[in-house]
């Protein structure tokens, strides 16, 4: 590491300590948004500056890092962040969920179950779930302090009134450990049940908003709903075209300019793993995902 001009994982040690203190507090108060002195990072806001700072603060030399964006390891954002830590910390990186000790994610939770020795770091754009209906931060903080979460249900009420069902399909609010209501970041609500009783530590970093929050391992996470409109995980009408998985979250991929489309696993590692294991979908050869993404 002598030839590395950066401090380990880019941030100076004081900053990392400050962030760790925020993380510890966040773990101690599940779902509570802890303010922290978010630093300028060598990337624009919206590209995961919160997640990157959390990862930098918890990263050790022996960690194995995986970074996904919308479930994929190979998008610009994921590739850049992986390269960033490979360069500034010299850590080993991977695309295999099972091999990673730290997984930084934008908008997904991997399909493969996570374990106790893993940490999931979410990139968060807007940490405040109440903001849509109550723009005053002074008021939303009081509402959290007093567990006044009726407004969250107003949002769901509006959904049902307008669409006949709870149409919120991502960033679906959850109650953590029976106390704080939390925005799980824009993951699809399909992933919400994975947060409940998850063995892995889940950390959430919002760089622009300067907030860190956490779900400790094996914490009760409940998606808000109504008695007569219970929370439902979205289902897909067909399995993955490539690997045939019927239990994963699918992305729609446009294959040509004549309306052709495919539904394939959003979690590329999961899809590849299944195909390596011999699973096939109805269009196993299907266009290369990279091409489609371009």
């Amino acid at each position, binding site marked *: 590491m002598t030839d590395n001009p950066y401090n380990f994982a880019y941030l100076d040690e004081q900053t990392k300590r400050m962030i760790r203190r925020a993380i510890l507090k966040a773990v101690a108060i599940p779902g509570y948004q802890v303010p922290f002195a978010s630093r300028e990072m060598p990337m624009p806001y919206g590209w995961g500056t919160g997640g990157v700072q959390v990862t930098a603060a918890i990263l050790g030399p022996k960690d194995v890092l995986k970074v996904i964006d919308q479930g994929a390891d190979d998008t610009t954002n994921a590739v850049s962040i992986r390269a960033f830590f490979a360069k500034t910390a010299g850590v080993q990186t991977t695309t295999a969920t099972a091999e990673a000790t730290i997984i930084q994610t934008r908008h997904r939770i991997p399909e493969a179950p996570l374990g106790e020795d893993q940490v999931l770091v979410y990139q968060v754009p807007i940490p405040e779930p109440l903001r849509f*209906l109550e723009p005053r931060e002074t008021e939303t903080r*009081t509402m959290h*302090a*007093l567990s*006044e979460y*009726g*407004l969250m*249900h*107003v949002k769901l*009420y*509006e959904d*049902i*009134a*307008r669409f006949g069902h709870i149409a919120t399909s991502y960033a679906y609010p959850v109650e953590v450990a029976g106390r704080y209501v939390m925005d799980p970041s824009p993951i699809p609500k399909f992933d919400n049940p994975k947060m409940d009783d998850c063995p892995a530590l889940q950390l959430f970093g919002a760089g622009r908003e300067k907030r860190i929050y956490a779900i400790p391992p094996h914490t009760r996470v409940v998606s808000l709903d*109504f*008695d*007569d*409109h219970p929370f439902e995980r979205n289902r897909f009408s067909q399995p993955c075209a490539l690997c045939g998985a019927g239990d994963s979250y699918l992305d729609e991929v446009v294959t040509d300019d004549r309306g052709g489309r495919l539904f394939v696993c959003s979690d590329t590692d999961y899809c590849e793993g299944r195909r390596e294991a011999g699973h096939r979908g109805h269009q196993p050869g299907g266009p290369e995902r990279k091409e489609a993404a371009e």
Partner: protein
Amino acid sequence: MTAPDALLEARGLAKSYGGRMACAGVSLAIREGEVLAVVGESGSGKSTLLNMLAGRLAPDAGEVHYRMRDGVMRDMARLSEAERRVLMRTDWGFVHQDAAQGLRMNVSAGGNIGERLMAIGGRHYGDIRAKAATWLTRVEIGVDRIDDKPTAYSGGMRQRLQIARNLVTSPRLVFMDEPTGGLDVSVQARLLDLIRGLSADLGLAVILVTHDLAVARLLSHRILVMKGGAVIETGLTDRVLDDPQAPYTQLLVSSVLAA
């Protein structure tokens, strides 16, 4: 002052802004089911008084006590923030002159009415919606407007929606700050009639701030006349308006065109 059957009682409420005394030691009590009108010109301190009574403004001096639903008289200043907020969205209501202050303008009428129910733990969409519909009907808004946002409502409808939003938890005390101000005369009459009917039917105590003596006469049992932050005269509404004693009250009453 001893008021064994007071619902709310204030003693020596004072507030000054800079050197100017907005409210100079006002004491009053209101009983359950009583409608009290606070009248006076702008700058008389009536809105300052209302906001202090309603716990929206901390007084420089004085106390406000309220008889909670368990019958115990509590000093509002000693209530925890949580208790105070629960009180304000269950047993109290506040109707603003500007409906935009009292409504969530980007939430449907049903959501606006349902908010208090959800805030106290309502988790059955169908029940919440049914109650919202009932209240829309009670304030004479068509149930077919339940999913419209207040931005699509007229001024009079917004005020009626604001009232429904407040009354859905069956409060015992409602504060009203010029509820008919800024509305057309015909719309005013309808709203006044509605407030009059609801407060009588529900046995609501109302503390109503208005500069309009006709509104006070129609709605209130008792009147409190304010000037320069002080109470000039108080008494039965028709007594104060028909036989005003204080010079200022006589001026106020004589300045009104008889309708």
